[in-house]
């Protein structure tokens, strides 16, 4: 659809402002352009992280050295973890789709603080640059794992300071995005959009924003304490200076557990949008969906101790954390039940994003159930720090957030680019990706159950078979990934023009042209109905 003719206003991609070329992007305060800046940065880093994962898996195809030594392997999983967690999945959905769609979905022209929004991206890039510097400066790349556990992080000769400081700066970027979204949602909803008329993706961003704002400062101060301890030798965490290593773990997980919810809540929001749209049916149990998102965000603050069951906490602490861990699973279960019920008696349009959504529900359930096993004290003692945990968190953060991210990418692709993607290739990519994913991480549950610890460069022969299958899975997954990305880029050029509402969606972004005009709405929309109003008129 031609925005020019219809609205007499250029789409955000054609808009000619003060700057040209690259500068018209990196100096732009338009939330849509900033969303795309994040998209390209995150995709590039994801490619790096995924390639590191592929190489690690190749190393593990046989016991002993295959393609790299232990020092390189340790540096690889450290960089892989830092990149994937701090630079890919934490910003992931909020920074890309949140930035692009949040203002549109609530009928606003932009976020509350557009300049701060651009500044967050600058911080993000600065953080990434610091992490890259840590790879090349000093005596060698960091090798502590993404958790930077004390006191090992004070013993290692790897270059810690830039990496730790980089994670700190990335945290700030996340805090500012959260703050921006909170104010936007409180202040800038279109007339008539009461809280309970707000779609679920903005709701999930709202809950996420609180977590970003309240939990991230904890990791900030913790990482600064590590910097101070390494440079000034103040004994916070290192027992040889009188510090306490468990204090570090508490502080680290007080943030890093809620961070898992920063990753997964927006994913749940995006999945809710996709399922209603393609079922052509209003979401089942809207209010329960809203309450469960808020409940996860809230209870999620109080379960960090389940990362430390074998560290040496008191018995009371252990079973309290265990019980709370089981309870935090309930709202997630409620969401799964409501998603499936939404499909009931729907009129389901089997499009690629919908396939991503059902694949998401499947892998998310596996991730969640394995989480229950890990939450159980007796089982945790055996499974903690084994490959079982590695499988579990890849199922949740890669299976959950990753699948939702790709689902969202296909779902909003027509809106963002004004083009349709090629459906056949998109589906082929998805199938390969899914098969590869299960083959890659499925065997790791078994390996962990058999006792193979995580972060192991070398292993006993008993673990060989499982590792071979897992490595072969990584090749299939990688090919699927390549097809998905190439197809989307090819569709930018060759794809058919997208109409403003290709899927029959009901939320506000489908009422404006694709791609949206600079100001989003020519006239501020007035909301009178619920977000998913499919009633026939």
């Amino acid at each position, binding site marked *: 659809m031609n925005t020019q003719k219809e609205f007499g206003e250029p789409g955000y991609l054609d808009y000619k402002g003060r700057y040209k070329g690259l500068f018209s992007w990196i100096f732009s305060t338009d939330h849509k352009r900033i969303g795309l800046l994040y998209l390209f940065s995150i995709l590039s880093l994801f490619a790096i992280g995924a390639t590191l994962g592929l190489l690690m898996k190749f190393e593990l195809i046989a016991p002993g050295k295959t393609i790299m030594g232990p020092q390189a392997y340790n540096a690889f999983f450290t960089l892989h973890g830092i990149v994937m967690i701090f630079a890919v999945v934490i910003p992931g959905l909020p920074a890309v789709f949140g930035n692009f769609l949040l203002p549109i979905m609530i009928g606003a022209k932009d976020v509350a603080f557009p300049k701060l929004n651009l500044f967050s991206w600058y911080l993000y890039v600065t953080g990434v640059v610091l992490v890259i510097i840590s790879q090349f400066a000093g005596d060698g790349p960091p090798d502590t794992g993404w958790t930077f556990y004390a006191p*090992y992080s004070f013993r290692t*000769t790897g270059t810690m300071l830039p990496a730790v400081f980089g994670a700190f700066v990335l945290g700030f970027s996340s805090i500012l995005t959260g703050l921006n979204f909170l104010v936007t949602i409180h202040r800038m909803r279109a007339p008539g959009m009461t809280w309970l008329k707000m779609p679920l993706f903005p709701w999930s961003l709202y809950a996420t924003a609180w977590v970003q704002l309240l939990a991230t400062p904890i990791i900030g101060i913790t990482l600064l304490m590590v910097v101070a301890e390494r440079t000034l030798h103040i004994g916070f965490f290192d027992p040889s200076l009188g510090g*306490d290593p*468990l204090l570090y773990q508490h502080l680290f997980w007080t943030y890093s557990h809620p961070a898992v919810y920063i990753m997964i809540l927006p994913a749940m929001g995006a999945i809710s949008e996709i399922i209603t749209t393609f079922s052509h049916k209003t979401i089942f149990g809207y209010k329960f969906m809203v309450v469960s998102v808020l409940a996860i965000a809230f209870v999620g603050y109080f379960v960090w101790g389940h990362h430390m069951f*074998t560290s040496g906490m008191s018995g009371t602490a252990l079973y309290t954390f*265990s019980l709370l861990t089981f309870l935090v699973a309930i709202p997630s279960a409620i969401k799964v039940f409501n998603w499936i019920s939404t499909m009931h*008696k729907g009129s389901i*349009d089997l499009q690629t994003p919908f396939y991503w959504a059902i694949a998401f529900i499947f892998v998310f*359930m596996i991730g969640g159930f394995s989480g229950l096993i890990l939450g159980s004290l007796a089982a945790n003692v055996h499974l903690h720090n084994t490959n079982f945990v590695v499988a579990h968190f890849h199922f949740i953060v890669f299976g959950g957030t990753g699948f939702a991210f790709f689902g969202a990418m296909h779902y909003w692709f027509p809106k963002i680019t004004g083009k349709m993607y090629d459906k056949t290739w998109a589906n082929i990519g998805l199938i390969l990706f899914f098969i590869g994913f299960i083959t890659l991480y499925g065997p790791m549950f078994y390996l962990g159950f058999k006792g193979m610890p995580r972060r192991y460069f070398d292993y006993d022969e008993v673990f060989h078979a499982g590792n071979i299958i897992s490595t072969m899975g990584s090749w299939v997954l990688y090919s699927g990934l390549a097809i998905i990305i190439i197809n989307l880029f090819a569709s930018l050029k060759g794809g058919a023009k997208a109409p403003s509402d290709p899927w029959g969606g009901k939320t506000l972004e489908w009422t404006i042209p694709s791609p949206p005009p600079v100001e989003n709405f020519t006239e501020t929309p007035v909301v009178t109905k619920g977000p998913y109003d499919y009633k026939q008129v």
Partner: protein
Amino acid sequence: MYSTTATDASNFVSTFNTSFYFIAGISLLLLIGLTVIMLYFVFRYNNKKNKVAVQNEGNTRLEIIWTVIPILLAIAMFYYGWAGWKPMNKAPKDALKITSVARMWSFSFQYENGKQSPDLVIPVNTPVKLNLVSLDVIHSIFIPAFRVKSDMVPGREKMMWFLPQTVGDFDLYCSEYCGLRHSYMNATVKVLSNEDYTSWYADSSKVITATEESVPGAEGLKIMINQGCNACHSSDGTKIVGPSYMNLYGEKQVVIREGKEVTVTVDDEYIKRAINDPNSEIVKGYPKGLMQSYKATLSDDDISKIIEYMKSLNDK
């Protein structure tokens, strides 16, 4: 070696199994059930078969049902986990006490009569209580066949106990990442019959590793195997983490002392300093702070034996 089929390798295998299979079983049922329902809906209500969706905003009774039932299931799951874990927390009074010392990257087990061993040798059907000590960073002692694990935190008292129930050899791993050779930080748990254990324990030599007695300096080698020196030093010229012992004694070595490079001759005094106060002089090209002092564990006599062994590694 390790097998999961030895269902009663320790007393904690069955409690682990109860809570693991209880949760895994319920989860599998739910996973299959929900997936089948979801796929059925996708086929049954696809827009070719079902042209018009029937709108339904929700059902509060259903919501309550699928909140309450999972809560009850979750509490049951929690209960089994807690019940299985509780006995781990309290070791029997009559347990055999062994101190387990971890350092980068080896374990050493110290018995009440002064015996030391790089492997954990224990009698069957006797409760064993390990007193856990780490000398440098956090390690974690993990015996998969026994379903037990505990972190070893420097500066913190910790213990772990279990009752071995089957004679045999089992793997023991370090499961908390501790640096370069983390994946090589292993040992074997040797569960012996009571008679075998008694005679092993009575053997008063400090070391048990079977190395050939005839090798010159064999006693020094035994001490070093015991102390885990070989995790970082080789005898054949390869560099692991620290310099190799081969052709070391009597040679010139460049070290960094108080920030300045000095050349020293490797003699008895130098080696003693290198072992008792490793960070006062750092061999050029090697990292500081990795090797810890052995002042508390090695006597002068032990060190002389080590030196004898090093001398035997010179080509000339």
